[in-house]
């Protein structure tokens, strides 16, 4: 081993000395092939306890009924929970379903996913295109658009709630302009609109960053070739930039869909628990309410709903992983 010089090197030497003997002993015991698993073990244990085990428990609960917490006290009901969730005269009319709130939540979530994905993608793309140009204070703007990502969803929900309140900043502005005040969060249309606005504002910085990285990976001389090839700015955008950004756009699209389906905390805080009425009750909130917030603790129904949602997310995640590999290659 090279002679240690700096403090970091000496510290490393110390750690090596401490661990070398036991690790060598383990390696003699299980062979070189097993060593990767030894190093992975601490992480795997944590993952197992806090991720895989809960998934298994939730799947188990999905097939049980009653309101007991301990699974040993819960009766096995087979597919009853799933049947209950899926029983509908028409899936398009939540009121005709046995679990009408579930279908209300599904439709709310679908609408949210549609608008949120489209709006976030568009805003992030336009922002990335602008930030990719040689504008003044580019670094400042890049940081500014990214900062909301660092905030807690609850903080985001609270800030916007104050902003949109009856006596909030927005109404103060509107009144200065002579526009009568509006209680935005008690209006179905406005509240849904602002849930999307807040979500776009919250998350766009992250997607902008991904798209910006993609834009910067496009060689500059392609744009010069296009300039010599007499391509107009719009043709350059649609024939050069967007096709070459395609893989990044796909990754962003799928990540956005996954995260949009999971909408909960900031919307829940912003809309006082999904209001007005059930206008902003989304799937995760439904699950939360069924399991923990209602008079009856319907763990089985909630688990069945989360298993269904998990399947959707699994499909999206697999798509994302495949595309991610494609982008890398």
């Amino acid at each position, binding site marked *: 081993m090279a002679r240690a010089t700096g403090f970091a090197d000496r510290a490393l030497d110390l750690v090596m000395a401490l661990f070398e003997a036991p690790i060598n002993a383990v390696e003699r015991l299980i062979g070189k092939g097993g060593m990767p698993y030894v190093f992975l073990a601490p992480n795997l244990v944590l993952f197992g306890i806090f991720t895989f085990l809960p998934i298994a428990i939730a799947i188990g609960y999905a097939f049980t009924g009653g309101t007991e917490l301990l699974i040993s006290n819960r009766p096995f009901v087979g597919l009853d929970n799933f049947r209950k969730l899926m029983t509908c005269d028409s899936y398009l009319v939540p009121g005709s379903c046995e679990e009408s709130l579930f279908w209300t939540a599904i439709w709310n979530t679908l609408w949210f996913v549609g608008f949120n994905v489209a709006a976030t993608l568009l805003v992030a793309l336009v922002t990335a295109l602008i930030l990719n140009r040689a504008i003044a204070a580019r670094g400042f703007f890049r940081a500014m658009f990214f900062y909301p990502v660092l905030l807690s969803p609850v903080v985001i929900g609270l800030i916007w709630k104050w902003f949109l309140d009856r006596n909030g900043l927005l109404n103060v502005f509107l009144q200065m302009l002579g526009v009568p005040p509006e209680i935005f969060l008690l209006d179905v249309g406005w509240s849904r609109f602002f849930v999307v606005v807040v979500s776009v504002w919250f998350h766009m910085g992250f997607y902008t960053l991904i798209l910006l990285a993609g834009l910067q990976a496009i*060689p500059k*001389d*392609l744009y*010069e*070739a*296009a*300039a*010599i*090839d*007499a*391509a*107009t700015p719009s*043709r350059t955008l649609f*024939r*050069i930039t967007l*096709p*070459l950004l*395609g893989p990044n756009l796909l990754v962003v699209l799928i990540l956005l869909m996954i995260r949009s389906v999971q909408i909960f905390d900031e919307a829940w805080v912003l809309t006082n628990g999904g209001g007005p009425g059930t206008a902003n009750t989304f799937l995760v909130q439904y699950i939360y309410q069924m399991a923990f917030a209602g008079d009856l603790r319907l763990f089985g129904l909630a688990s069945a709903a989360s298993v269904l949602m998990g399947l959707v997310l699994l499909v999206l995640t697999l798509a994302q992983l495949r595309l991610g590999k494609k982008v890398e290659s």
Partner: protein
Amino acid sequence: MVIYREQAMGDLKLKNLNKSFGAVDVLHDVNLQIDNGEFVVFVGPSGCGKSTLLRIIAGLEDVTSGAIAIGGRDVSALSPAERKIAMVFQSYALYPHMSVRKNLAFGLENLKFKRAEIDARITEAARMLAIEPYLDRRPKQLSGGQRQRVAIGRAIVRDPDIFLFDEPLSNLDAALRVQTRAEITKLHREMQTTMIYVTHDQVEAMTMADKIVVLRAGRIEQVGTPLELFDHPRNLFVAGFLGSPRMNILKGRIVIGDDGGALVDVGYGTLLRSDVDPATVTSGQEVLAGVRPAHFGLSDGEGLPFEVQYHESLGTETYVYGNLQGQSEQVIVHQAGHFAPAPGAILKIVPLEGRLHVFDPASELALARAGHGRA
């Protein structure tokens, strides 16, 4: 070629061109006239401004001051697309998501050409460059040489007044480079269109150019045909830059001979005959004498004592490395065919008739030749 040129539009004039990036001046007062149909090579070491000059002609860089005229039209303020030029990039800059055919068609589509005309031009260019089999492939599926042809094809279909090449061969291997060099020369002969070609490779410059422009540190050092520059370099830089191995430089003094001619005394009792105009020099004036390795001959009698260190045999020719006796500067002597002097041997060498270049050590300029004025 189907594309007939109606009139000569490919002449280029650069007038008092200056370019700076912030506080850094990259081009100083560049003046240059290029005639229609000429193959002009910009050559110089890295950072001499040759690529910047090409990009300014293309319109990819603005000028700080000065004017550019193509075909008598001032294009200084025009976009690249309006200048009727086409450029082949060092990286080829092919659109990776488009097939070869679409790469070729893109510029023509932008200019709103009719489909039939686009197809005709692509077919013709593909035939000239022998890239027909690859038209429906993506650039990624092509070899470096094939990509190079596609990049040239993309320029050809545009039927530009001027072709611009930015070190187009630097990404090819040696064999392919020689082959492509010949093909570009052939292309120029067929098309008779003005071509401007940037390279740092003096062999490319010497073999391809009608006219070479040597640049150093943002200034044009000399403009001329390859042999003009080789035979009569205007200054030490051009003398050293063109020709490989480099010209040997010896310190010496002017001696006016009995016949009134200017001779150069580099020591060792041997006076070297020069074509310097004796009226422009004084006896005893310090000079630098330049002799290319190939322009030293071996002598049985009088000559400079050349001490051999080692030699390189290339089969058809031999380079002998050594120094003049008692001096440390390396001197290289070229001999045709096989030649194997022993290390330490002393050879007598003399410059061939008319092959001595004489420079002023202060200005580094070549001294005026008798009957020629300054080179």
